[in-house]
């Protein structure tokens, strides 16, 4: 089955939406600010559920990113086709995934990370997320694409 650019865009956008939503739900804010009171959004205040959702969205995102990366390499699309904003988003996405994967490892049983490392990971992960969302919003408004 040939995956069109539009389909890719939808998969990426939906995944990004759910991973960001479940990611923000890791902080106890949705209950405080009544968002979890909205019918159908009560799950946003259930930490174990949002934790699982975040992991599932991460699995989809990693699979999708690897697919797009190798599809790009195999098609010999050429690095010069990637725009400046595209490069920037790739870097931020890579930071987000790497910090996220380290946090997944941290959450496994019998794994002890240095306390400062955990704090930095949390902050980096949140920062990468905020930057990615900001740049994605900018790219959407300015109609800037990943590739030229």
């Amino acid at each position: 089955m040939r995956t069109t650019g539009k389909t890719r865009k939808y998969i990426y956008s939906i995944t990004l939406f759910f991973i960001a939503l479940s990611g923000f739900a890791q902080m106890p804010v949705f209950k405080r600010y009544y968002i979890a009171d909205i019918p159908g959004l009560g799950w946003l205040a259930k930490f174990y559920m949002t934790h699982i959702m975040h992991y599932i969205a991460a699995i989809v995102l990693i699979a999708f990113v690897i697919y797009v990366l190798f599809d790009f390499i195999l098609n010999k699309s050429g690095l010069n086709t990637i725009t400046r904003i595209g490069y920037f988003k790739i870097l931020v996405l890579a930071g987000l995934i790497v910090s996220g994967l380290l946090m997944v490892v941290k959450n496994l049983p019998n794994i002890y990370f240095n306390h400062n490392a955990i704090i930095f990971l949390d902050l980096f992960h949140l920062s990468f997320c905020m930057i990615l969302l900001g740049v994605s919003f900018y790219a959407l408004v300015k109609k800037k694409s990943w590739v030229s």
Partner: protein
Amino acid sequence: MTSKISRRAFLKGSITAAGSVVATTGIAKAAKSITHTKKEPLATLLDISKCIGCEECVFACKESNANKYPNPKKPFPKMYPTRVPVEDWSDKRDVTDRLTPYNWLFIQHASATVNGEEIELTIPRRCMHCDNPPCVKLCPWGALKQEENGLSRIDSNICLGGSKCKKACPWDVPQRQTGTGLYLDLLPALAGNGAMFKCDRCYNKLEKGEVPACIEACPEDVQTIGPRSEILKKAHALAKEMGGYIYGEHENGGTSTIYVSPVPFEQLSNSIEKGKGKPHLNKVKDMMADGTNLAKAMIVAPIAGLAAAFGKFYLSSKEDK
């Protein structure tokens, strides 16, 4: 017949002389074992049949950890929205019948029937120090840490008091105090609500090769500390000897707090007063198990992406030919 086996009066009298010798020997042994096993997590064994509910451990805990207790500034900053609860224990520091930010260990009372005789049991309750603690793993700020010796603790200087750790804890152990901590320096009106507090198993004493205050103070030697494998062996031997039951070995995937009781824990859990700051003794499934399984499944994600890319390439190459 209710023979309120007033073990407190009986045992306290009979052990006064011998107790200190036994306890000192026990503590010396425990201190030796904890200094020898830095790599294997430490666990504590609590023999409920020995506890007389004297609260010596409770007061020793209070005394030993007094310097870690919060000193909130009042009046508290107004928090928005108004549903955000103010939790203030600073004027109720003497409360000892439940967990609070100023009381990290308390004695729970249970009645049970053994061999047709009703007895009263007392159970020291505090943080279970889970093997894979959800409070530590799910804290969004890294305000909690688990040390290699198995204890988990809250860094109250970093904690923002969101209380997620309490909601994630199967026993609702961490307790919040408003008006203290880092949130005061950030956006106190809009984010955070103080800091959380719980038993840290006297990490500072353990670092010095000493045993936790509650263990040291117990006149009955209710608690034993040592490498988890040894503690589990002892717990099983003790349970076998008394025909008793074990709690904490498998709860939430395993903990470092192993209770041994002559009475089934279902019976104890039905008997104890439960509620806010008063944890249950029910069976607890491994709360982090789903996340751990998904983490393993995450290894498949890049393989799937790779397979899809190569599959697409193979199909398009075939089409081109």
